[in-house]
């Protein structure tokens, strides 16, 4: 049988993907199977990561703590005593608590935390909503860029439109707050 991906090389590897509980089976050659990359996330992957001790009842909180402990054990050596200057957290405290001390820890200990986060969620990039304020700032920034661009190339009518929108956005009273 030939590889089901390239159809050229003989298939030598049976690859099983489980996505949302649905199993698909493919026969691939070695180059194609290594190109396939990481399997899309499924809870089964979480089980794999968690190791036998957590099967069958996977509680993500417990997994989080156990992975965190492992990572810290691997990473922390005496010369790696990083400390967050905002909350004073160290890696070993992170391990003890299984929680971060402040929002900055995700950046300070990013090198250690990001792999954990990816293993927990099977993903590493946020895909959901953003606070209105963030969206507004993003919009303002892009408007300012467009304004600069328009002025530079002497498209004044357009520039005036951007300026108006910037003015409206910038002075907009937050609609969730009472005006007092």
């Amino acid at each position: 049988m030939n590889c089901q991906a390239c159809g050229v090389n003989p298939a030598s590897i049976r690859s099983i993907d489980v996505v949302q509980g649905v199993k698909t089976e493919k026969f691939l050659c070695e180059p194609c199977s290594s190109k396939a990359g990481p399997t899309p996330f499924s809870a089964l992957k979480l089980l794999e990561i968690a190791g036998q001790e957590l099967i069958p009842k996977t509680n993500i909180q417990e997994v989080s703590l156990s992975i965190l402990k492992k990572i810290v054990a691997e990473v922390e050596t005496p010369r790696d005593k990083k400390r967050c200057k905002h909350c004073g957290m160290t890696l070993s405290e992170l391990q003890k608590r299984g929680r971060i001390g402040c929002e900055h820890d995700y950046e300070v200990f990013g090198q250690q935390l990001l792999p954990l986060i990816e293993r927990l969620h099977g993903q590493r990039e946020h895909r959901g909503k953003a606070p209105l304020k963030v969206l507004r700032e993003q919009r303002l920034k892009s408007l300012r860029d467009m304004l600069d661009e328009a002025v530079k190339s002497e498209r004044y009518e357009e520039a005036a439109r951007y300026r108006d929108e910037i003015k409206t956005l910038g002075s907009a009273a937050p609609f969730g707050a009472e005006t007092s």
Partner: protein
Amino acid sequence: MIGGRFAKIAGEWLAPDGPDRDVVVSTRARLARNVEGWKMPWRLTDQERATLEAYLHERLHRLSGVDSTTYLNVDALDEVSRRLLVERHLISRELAQADGDRGVTFTPTESLSIMTNEEDHLRVQIIRAGFRVREAWVDIDALDDRISEVLDYAYSPSLGYLTACPTNLGTALRISVMAHLPTLVSTKQIKKIENAATQTGHILRGLYGEGTKPSGDLYQISNQLTLGRSEEEIVCSVIDLVSKIIEWERGVRSLLLAQDRTSMQDKVSGAIDALRDAEKLSFDEAMRHLSLVRLGITTNLAPNLSMQTVNELFLETQPAHLQTFHGAPGEPLERDRIRADFIRARLKSDNR
């Protein structure tokens, strides 16, 4: 004690008119949020924590579009009052058991509550009666936008809302559906449900969440994963899974009815008799019987009882409720007697 603050009847979310109410009791959406520039609650000194609590309370008070709210400083409450709030799903067990300044803000209908200084600075929650995942999300999304205008959230474009525990990163959205699964329990299929949930990134838990044992055949089904999927995807995945579980439970109910209606009728009638005749009832006994009565109502085997009554009894027969509203003592035996009296009286008045 804080009993006076509540109508004796349950919050709006226990109303018996929700979609798919034969299986689903309620739907809950919660968001974890933290405020920029403050350490996580557990990391704050007592002084800082008190300052933050007062600040959050003040900001949330300015929130528009929300009914007059009640704020309670949980630290100042006695043990029974805290348990009462847990039983009403207004606060988590974690918040009840924690130390230091912390609070809860909620609306008169109790469908909205915001915990302050829990694991995260804010835990925002919306509860709806019946199977209403999308409505719960739409409401909490709008509320979240309004809160974000009075408080600056800790947020990063790549990791989303920054939470105390890495397991909540991203959307920090957890949707929980409380389902009544009596025939899946009696036919020993809960394990399968549990596996199906786990394999699709969800989790099945007891009545009060994390680590609690199921009671009255009531289960909470929630998503576990929050990063790298949008709120819409989370909403759809929970709707998908729970719809299947609803169909499954309904299928088994009709199968059991078709196979042996008599013995099911016997069980339901037995439970009603037990609730009417008992001199004393423990919480577990009451929940077990109430579960059968609820099943009886949805299968027309308990024609004289209403879903409203059973839903409310599920709540009102819990220990802190009996203590608060019926003067039951902390001592279990006496409490079991008062529970039996209360249930007997309620069923009598419900007989239409």
